[in-house]
C-alpha cells in the first residue's frame, strides 16, 4: 500500500511541479506538495506531561517550545540511535558482534532529551547501555559500530567493546552496576573544584538504583553540594526482574531522600529536555545535586542473550511501541503542526539508513586490531615496558 502511495505521490509531484499547484492525495495522511521551507511553521508550543516532584517548589513548565531545526535534529538523532541499535541486533545474530550487547531502542528520547538540556562542555557518565550516549556525546556511528565488532577503527580501538566507549567529557560505558554513580559525582567534584560552571549527568537504571554505593554518593554529593544530575532511567526491568520485585519503593525520584527529585515522562523528548534544563539550572546555581527519574522502556531484552519475553508479555511491548514510541511521538507532533513534511522526514530516514549501512560496512570490513597492540595502553605517559606473555619465554612490548 505504502509503495503504491509513493508511486502515486511521485507522479503527482511531477505534475505538480509542472503546474505549480498543490495536491493532496485522498485517503491518506500523505501530503504531496512543492512547498518551500518558508511554508513550514518555524516553531510551536507543545503540552508536556506534568512531572511529579519531590522536595522541589515546582517542576518544569507544562509547555515546551520546539523549533523546526530542533525537531529535525532530535528526529535525526533518535532515528540514528534506533537504526544503529537495530543494525547491532542484526550483526549480533550473525555473530559478527560478540559478548555483551545491551541495546537502547525505545529509550532514545532520554539520551537526546538530556543532551538537548546540557552543553557538550558538560560531562556525562552512564552504565553499559551506552551506545546512544556515545553518539550524543560526539561519537560517530562508524566508530561505535567498529568498536562493537572489535576492529581497529573502533572508538576504543577494539579494546573496550560495547560497554567501554569513551569520548570527550563522556566517561563510558561502565560494566559494574552502580559503580559509575560515585565516578560521576567525582567528575562533578572536579567541575566544582575547577570552577568552570560545568556539571555532570550521572545515569543509572532501576536495577542499579538499589545499590549501596549510590546512597553513599547521594550523601556526599549533597553534603558537598556537587553539581551532579542523578538520572535513573527506569525501564521497568532490571534484567529479568520487574521493579516491583526488586525495590521496596519504586518511587525512584524520591529515593534520594534529601535530594530534590522529579519524575519525568522519558518517552517524550521535550519533557526530558525541559526537566534536564531545570535540573541543570539547579546545579549551576550552586544548590547541589538533583535527581530525575525518567520513565522509559526498552524494546529489546536486557541484552542480546535475553529474548525479553519471559518476564513481560509481547502485548506489553507492542502497546508501548504503538502508543508511546518516542520517535513516532515527535514525528506526529511535527507533522500535525506543519513543522516538517513527510518527505523531509523520509529523506532523513534514508540518509540515516545509508549512514548506518556505511558504518556497518566499515565495521565488518575494517581489520581487527594488530597483535602488537595487545599490551599497549597499560600506563599513560610511561616509557615502554615489557609484559610477560603466556609463557616465560614470551616477552611482549607495551607502550603508552
Amino acid at each position, binding site marked *: 500500500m505504502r509503495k503504491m502511495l509513493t508511486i502515486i505521490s511521485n507522479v503527482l509531484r511531477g505534475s505538480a511541479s509542472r503546474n505549480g499547484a498543490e495536491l493532496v492525495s485522498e485517503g491518506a495522511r500523505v501530503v504531496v506538495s512543492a512547498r518551500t521551507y518558508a511554508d513550514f511553521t518555524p516553531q510551536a508550543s507543545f503540552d508536556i506531561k506534568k512531572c511529579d516532584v519531590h522536595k522541589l517548589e515546582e517542576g518544569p513548565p507544562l509547555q515546551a517550545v520546539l523549533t523546526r531545526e530542533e525537531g529535525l535534529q532530535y528526529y535525526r538523532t533518535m532515528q540514528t540511535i534506533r537504526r544503529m541499535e537495530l543494525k547491532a541486533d542484526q550483526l549480533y545474530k550473525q555473530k559478527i558482534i560478540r559478548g555483551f550487547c545491551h541495546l537502547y531502542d525505545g529509550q532514545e528520547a532520554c539520551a537526546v532529551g538530556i543532551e538537548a538540556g546540557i552543553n557538550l562542555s558538560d*560531562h556525562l*557518565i552512564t552504565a553499559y547501555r551506552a551506545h546512544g550516549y556515545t553518539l550524543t556525546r560526539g561519537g560517530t556511528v562508524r566508530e561505535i559500530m567498529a568498536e562493537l565488532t572489535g576492529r581497529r577503527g573502533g572508538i*576504543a*580501538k*577494539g*579494546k*573496550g567493546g560495547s560497554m*567501554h566507549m*569513551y*569520548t570527550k567529557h563522556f*566517561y*563510558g560505558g*561502565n*560494566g*559494574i552496576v552502580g*559503580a559509575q*554513580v*560515585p*565516578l*560521576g*559525582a*567525582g*567528575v*562533578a*567534584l*572536579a*567541575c566544582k*573544584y*575547577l570552577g568552570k560552571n560545568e556539571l*555532570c549527568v550521572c545515569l543509572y537504571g532501576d536495577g542499579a538504583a538499589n545499590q*549501596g*554505593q549510590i546512597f*553513599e*554518593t547521594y*550523601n*556526599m554529593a549533597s*553534603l*558537598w553540594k556537587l553539581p551532579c544530575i542523578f538520572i535513573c532511567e527506569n525501564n521497568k526491568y532490571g534484567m529479568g526482574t520487574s521493579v516491583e520485585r526488586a525495590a521496596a519503593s519504586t518511587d525512584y525520584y524520591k529515593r534520594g531522600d534529601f535530594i530534590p527529585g522529579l519524575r519525568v515522562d522519558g518517552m517524550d523528548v521535550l519533557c526530558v529536555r525541559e526537566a534536564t534544563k531545570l535540573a541543570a539550572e539547579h546545579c549551576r546555581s550552586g544548590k547541589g545535586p538533583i535527581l530525575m527519574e525518567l520513565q522509559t522502556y526498552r524494546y529489546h531484552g536486557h541484552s542480546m542473550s535475553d529474548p525479553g519475553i519471559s518476564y513481560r508479555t509481547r502485548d506489553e511491548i507492542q502497546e508501548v511501541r504503538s502508543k508511546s514510541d518516542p520517535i513516532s511521538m515527535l514525528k506526529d507532533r511535527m507533522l500535525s503542526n506543519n513543522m516538517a513534511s513527510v518527505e523531509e522526514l523520509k529523506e532523513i530516514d534514508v540518509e540515516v539508513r545509508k549512514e548506518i549501512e556505511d558504518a556497518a560496512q566499515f565495521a565488518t570490513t575494517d581489520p581487527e586490531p594488530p597483535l602488537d*597492540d595487545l599490551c*599497549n*595502553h*597499560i*600506563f*599513560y*605517559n*610511561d616509557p615502554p*615496558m615489557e*609484559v610477560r606473555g603466556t609463557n*616465560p619465554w614470551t616477552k611482549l612490548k607495551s607502550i*603508552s
Partner: protein
Amino acid sequence: MASLRCFLRSGKVFVVPCDICIINSILLLQVTVRDALNQAMDEELERDERVFLLGEEVAQYDGAYKVSRGLWKKYGDKRIIDTPITEMGFAGIAVGAAMAGLRPICEFMTFNFSMQAIDQVINSAAKTYYMSAGLQSVPIVFRGPNGASAGVAAQHSQCFAAWYGHCPGLKVVSPWSAEDARGLLKSAIRDDNPVVFLENELMYGVPFEMSEEVQSKDFLIPIGKAKIERQGTHITLVSHSRMVSLCLDAAAVLAKEGIECEVINMRTIRPLDAEAIETSIMKTNHLVTVEGGWPQFGIGAEILARIMEGPAFNYLDSPAVRVTGVDIPMPYAKILEDNSVPQIKDIIFSIKKTLNV
C-alpha cells in the same frame, strides 16, 4: 651508632623529635616516616593545585595516624576533604575526579577497608586506560597503612600487597624508610597512573637519617626500582616494608658469624624489579624472601616463580625459600600475634637452612 640504628629500624614505636646531627659537615636530619609522608604531601599539594587529599579524618582530625597533620589548616576544605565512612563511595568519587582532570590522593584508614572499595580501585581505576585504548587516564594515588599492626586482630591486620600486585594497570609501591616514603610518594603523586601506596603503621614513628639531597623538593625515587640496603656475598634477602628492618637486623647478627647477607629493599611490588634480584643471586647463589603477608600466592611466591623461570635459576646452589606470615587470621593475644609474623630468629633460621650451616 650502628647498633642504635639497628634498634631503631626494628620498628619499635616511639616518637623522636627531629634532631639535627651535623656529621662530616653534611646536614642530616632525623625524620620519621610519618613526617616524611606529611612533607611529601605538603610539597606536592603546593606544587600542583590539582592535587588534593580525601579520606576519613584526614582534615580536622589531622589524620587517624596523624600523617596529614597540619595540612587542612594550611590548605583548607577545598583540598583536604573529610569523608563519611563510605569507602566504596569516596573511592569512586576520587577515581571520577581523577578522570576529570584532578590528581586525588585517596586515603584508606587502613587497607583492610579498601576491600569495600576494591571494585573502584581495580575496575574503575586500573583497567580504564586499557579499556579506553588510551583515551582516559586515571592519575590517582590510593594510600594508607597496610599489613600487621599491634594488637588490632584479624580484620585489621591483612596485607594487600599480593592482592593489588596481581592486577595489571596498577602500580603498587611499598616504602620502608623515610627516604622511601618521601621519594616514592612524590613519584606516586606525579605519576599519571593509579598507584597503590602501601604504608605501615608500625613504621610511622621510626626515624631515619635524611640527607640534604633527599630533603630537596624534587627528590623522587623511581617506581619499579629496588634498592640494595646492604651489600653481601653469601645470600640474597628480598623484602619490602617493615620486614626490611628485620632483614637488616638478621644480617647484623649473622655478620658476627661471618655470613654476609645482601639485603634488597623491593620498594615497588608492581612492577617488580626482578633484574635487581637476579643480579644479586648471580653473585650470592642463594635466595630467601621475607614478607609479612600470607604465603599462599604471595609476594615471595611470585619472586620465586620468576627466579625459576629466569636466568638466575642456574646460579642457585639451593632451593629458594620464603619467610612469611603464618597462614592464619591474625590473633589478638600478644604471644600469639608475635608468633604469627616473621621474627628475626625465623629469618636467621631460614638463612642457615638455605646455606646448610
